[in-house]
């Protein structure tokens, strides 16, 4: 993928590869993001980043709907590492956005939007589908169709334990295919990733590895997009065999 595009990146800002940023986070027992750890940026493995002067500043902005936190992470020469910094400041902590940039004065020289921390305690944190708990009132689950990163939100009520229930075949069967359909609808409208590591890249890789046709690289009508979504969802349903999993669990 080209690193610079005159259309989307006219100032030739360096797009930081996610693998160079050591950012991890932990969740509490309800699945809410509890704290984050910043272990530094690996400048050595990227020629463009390596050439930046030592005094450029590193800033991390964490936001959630209307809440916002700005963190000074020091300079290239002296990175201000953070260890398990609490995120209590945020009210729901179910859907945080992470934006890291490197700047000189007011000018951004390098950036990574939609930076996703790694969750060392989550087995599936790099999966195609992110699930997070949220305040949903009487609604059990929904898809937050955020073009920057769609997420399945499940009700945070601890008695319901929706995260646990999603591991059960019946709940997976009831939720997953419908949720994936909504993901694919969003993908069909926004198939091009803005940055390295964006959610669309994971889907492209998945389609490629599984011999599934990606959405054609041309402008499609709504009807054509709908057709692609339906074809793809049928392939995924065949692949996941969610009905079979339920029947196998309850043979009678």
């Amino acid at each position, binding site marked *: 993928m080209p690193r610079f595009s005159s259309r989307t990146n006219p100032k030739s*800002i360096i797009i930081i590869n996610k693998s160079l940023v050591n950012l991890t986070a932990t969740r509490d027992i309800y699945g809410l993001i509890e704290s984050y750890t910043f272990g530094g940026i690996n400048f050595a493995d990227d020629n463009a980043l390596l050439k930046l002067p030592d005094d450029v500043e590193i*800033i991390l902005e964490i936001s959630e709907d209307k*809440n916002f936190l700005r963190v000074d992470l020091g300079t290239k020469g002296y990175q201000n590492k953070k260890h398990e910094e609490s995120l209590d400041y945020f009210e729901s902590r179910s859907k945080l956005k992470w934006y890291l940039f490197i700047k000189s004065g*007011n000018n*951004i020289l390098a950036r990574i939007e939609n930076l996703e921390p790694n969750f060392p305690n989550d087995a599936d944190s790099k999966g195609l589908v992110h699930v997070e708990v949220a305040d949903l009132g009487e609604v059990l689950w929904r898809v937050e169709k955020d073009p920057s990163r769609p997420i399945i939100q499940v009700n945070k009520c601890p008695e319901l334990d929706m995260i646990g229930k999603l591991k059960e075949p019946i709940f997976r069967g009831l939720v997953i295919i419908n949720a994936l359909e909504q993901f694919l609808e969003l993908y069909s409208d926004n198939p091009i990733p803005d940055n390295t590591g964006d959610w669309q890249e994971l889907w492209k890789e998945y389609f490629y590895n599984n011999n599934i046709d990606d959405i054609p690289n041309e402008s499609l009508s709504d009807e054509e997009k709908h057709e692609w979504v339906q074809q793809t969802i049928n392939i995924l349903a065949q692949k996941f065999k969610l009905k079979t999993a339920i029947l196998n669990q309850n043979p009678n």
Partner: protein
Amino acid sequence: MLNTIHCFNAAGLKRFEDFLKDTKLDENRGLAKKDLPSSLISDPRYVEEYSYDEIDITKEFTTRYELGKYLVDEWVNFNKKDYDEVGVWAWIAAVYFDQIRGKKTQDWYHFIPGEYDQERTVQSVGYRHAVRTPFKLIENQYEDNFVKLCTNRNISTAGDAWENFTGNQKVLSSAAIRNLLVEMYYDEKKETFKPGVFTNVSKAKHKSVAGKAGARRVLPIIIPRVKKSFDIHDMDTDELIEACGKEVQTSKWVKKPKIK
């Protein structure tokens, strides 16, 4: 008439909540608004003394800004922890209820802070409280013109600036953004936001100037775009206007053309 600041106890909050629910139900059926029982703010079954500081419970205000200013001046022993005391904010809202109440009674969280019943609010609505929000903006010493931009409407209305700015930490945490909003949208003579600031851009009429560079474009679209190239945190207003590009620079909201 001076009265020490009180707060509702659990029974008082429930009573106030029930009243708000009942009057809303009546109004939705086309019936007249119910009157808040005048004894509610003094009935010992529902209220208790909270502070020795006194407020004039008969004082009248033109705007919520005025109300907030008055309370900040009078509540001299205010402590930051008081922000979390739902009962005291609900009691003050009940004291000035007849002034704050709109033509139709607003939802309960305009009078009782939203955290009172989080199950009923999918998102945080604490900022909608008619008394606590202006108090908080003034007590936390936000720029006076910004506070007026958000809260200096008729006392019975909140308005779009309140709704869009006062609960938005991206605005509250950035002096650069607040200064930009004041520079572009604040009417110094009327001491509130200019008409048309919150007009939506017409998708059907691309040549229409309505909504161009208005608040509904600047906050959700233009500022995030600027932030891809600039750290706006320390920018002054002229720098930020320039960074925002032609739509803002040439808009009617900018006093002088800023194109260099």
